[in-house]
């Protein structure tokens, strides 16, 4: 196996050495890549000659090639290895080999060095710059099986921890952590803005219903004991039409769906393991959009499904249904807004993934107050408007209302200052 690896390494090194456009640099820096090197140095720790302590920063240059900047100083060298301009190197494995053994022939590499490399290279911390991904959060960089990956936005250091999850079609996707443990979103998403949106949307237990598509006595018992309102629909192939009747009366409310996912559908199996019904997740999402119901999909890898509407909340892992219900009950009873709700419902075993356009279709009714009467807030509103939480909230609020000297207050929770109210207060004060 190791011999095979040596041969492979030799072929790789030769092929890279033959390429003309790129450079494997052992000098202090590469001309033209100074800004990239500066960004890399700000995120990497001090140089090391221990491969197990190595870190690797990656960004994409204007030609579409990847720039690799490590803090690893290889044998007999004084500077850390850097790689630029190789269109061939879009695989982190290949970059790692060239960082560890720059310019060396495979026959010169000692077995002990190779062993150390093989033992540690998958644990090397990789920091991916935002340029590695396109606006959809996709990339052609291959970084399969690396567990210690983080994502860096240039305007938002330090890098956020990430999660790589399987999309179910043999491709993997990188998600950036939006908040503490364990809420994630696509890397191209402005994380702060998403959290703001979640904080602005109040969580109302009375306006949240649960539909369980799981046939399991332990799970059912836990749900029965809880105070979460349930939707009981016949678990047959008419689920969608039955559910639509319920959704008509749920406009503006939240529906949590707990189910077992196979491929792109919720599949309902009886106790013998036989499939008795299924619901396509995207059809369920379309239905919820049609009736303006916020859907929270608690199903294995629901986050992996591409959604045309892209405003869902899903899970990026396989999880236990009873564990999910326990977390849901805890969140249901102790959350004031959706940031809290999702924070409470997520765990290392149940990472939650939120889509970029989450709550974009949800309208929040707000009252307008004159800025002059700020000290006597909520006394006499000058009007009421419906504010859609879509796009950039700050921009929307400022563009439409900022110049009119108004303060926006959520009328439903005037007495206890809702997160929406607080967020809007902050916006006005900043203004």
């Amino acid at each position: 196996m190791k011999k095979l690896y040596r041969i492979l390494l030799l072929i790789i090194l030769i092929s890279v050495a033959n390429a003309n456009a790129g450079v494997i640099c052992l000098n202090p820096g590469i001309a033209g890549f100074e800004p990239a090197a500066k960004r890399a140095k700000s995120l990497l720790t001090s140089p090391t000659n221990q491969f197990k302590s190595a870190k690797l920063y990656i960004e994409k240059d204007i030609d579409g090639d990847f720039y690799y900047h490590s803090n690893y100083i290889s044998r007999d060298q004084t500077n850390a290895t850097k790689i630029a301009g190789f269109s061939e190197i879009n695989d982190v494995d290949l970059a790692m080999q060239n960082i560890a053994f720059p310019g060396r022939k495979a026959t010169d590499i000692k077995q002990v060095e190779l062993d150390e490399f093989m033992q540690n290279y998958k644990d090397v911390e990789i920091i991916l710059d935002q340029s590695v991904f396109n606006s959809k959060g996709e990339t052609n960089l291959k970084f399969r099986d690396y567990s210690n990956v983080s994502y860096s936005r240039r305007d938002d250091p330090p890098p956020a921890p990430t999660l790589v999850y399987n999309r179910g079609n043999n491709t993997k996707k990188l998600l950036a952590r939006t908040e503490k443990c364990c809420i994630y979103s696509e890397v191209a998403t402005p994380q702060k803005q998403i959290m703001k949106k979640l904080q602005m949307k109040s969580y109302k237990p009375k306006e949240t219903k649960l539909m369980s598509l799981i046939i399991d006595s332990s799970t059912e018992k836990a749900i029965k004991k809880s105070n979460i309102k349930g939707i009981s629909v016949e678990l047959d192939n008419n689920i969608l039409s039955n559910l639509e009747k319920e959704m008509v009366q749920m406009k503006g409310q939240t529906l949590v769906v707990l189910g077992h996912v196979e491929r792109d559908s919720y599949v309902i199996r009886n106790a013998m393991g036989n499939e008795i019904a299924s619901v396509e997740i995207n059809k369920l999402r379309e239905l919820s959009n049609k009736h303006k119901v916020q859907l929270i999909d608690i199903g294995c890898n629901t986050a992996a499904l591409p959604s045309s509407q892209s405003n869902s909340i899903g899970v990026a892992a396989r999880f236990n249904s009873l564990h999910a219900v326990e977390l849901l009950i805890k969140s249901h009873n102790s959350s004031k807004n959706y940031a809290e709700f999702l924070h409470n419902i997520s765990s290392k075993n149940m990472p939650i993934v939120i889509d970029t356009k989450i709550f974009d279709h949800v309208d929040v009714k707000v009252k307008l107050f004159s800025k002059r009467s700020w000290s006597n807030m909520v006394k006499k509103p000058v009007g009421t408007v419906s504010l859609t939480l879509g796009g950039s909230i700050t921009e929307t609020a400022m563009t439409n209302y900022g110049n009119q000297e108004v303060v926006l207050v959520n009328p439903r929770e005037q007495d206890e200052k809702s997160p929406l109210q607080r967020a809007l207060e902050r916006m006005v004060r900043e203004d």
Partner: protein
Amino acid sequence: MGLEIDSLPINELVAILNELDTSKKSNIKNKFPELGDEIDPGVWAGENVCIENGEIILTKARFASEVLGIAILHSKEALKIISSKIQRANKIRLLGQIGAVVGSSGTILAMGFGKETVAQVSAVLALFGSISSILSAHTEKTISTKTGNINEVYLNLSGQLQEAIFLRNNINAHIQYKSGTTELVNLISMSNELCRKINKNTLQVPQLWHKISEIEEYKNEILMAEGK
């Protein structure tokens, strides 16, 4: 090589096990380390297609046999509780009916009491009849009225007890004589389905779970249930 099957759930068997007290539960769990997280209550929401090798199927069969033993005991205890409830309800109903019949039969009038007294006693007896009818109905009621009354639960559970004994004997025989895994897969699936029904019915008898947790040696009881 493994047997490729869509799924071989044991979640309902686990749900029965989960009603035992912590030490007994962990004793049984420790016997089946090969089952990993499948022995946790709830179901794992993920792709179900899996390769079950012969060893895992055999472990699941041994687990099913063990849990069916507990289910047999649960059902027996539930039937005892239900039976006494039915008897109590019948007694209340009988007394009420006697009272109502006496109250409306004119017997009191024949005894020579005054008209007013007769009217009062008759009214009280009629009221007693109505109340007893309500009380007996209440005694027969289960937790969830959707799943029927206690008589239905009794009938269902009696059948399920026999089915559990039959399945357990069958599984044990297949394990002992090392017959094909396909038969075991069917028996495990049927056991899981049966345990769901037993769970549903025994859930109607909340006193049961407390009683079961007090029992130290359930194995002897199981053997008795099987007539050994």
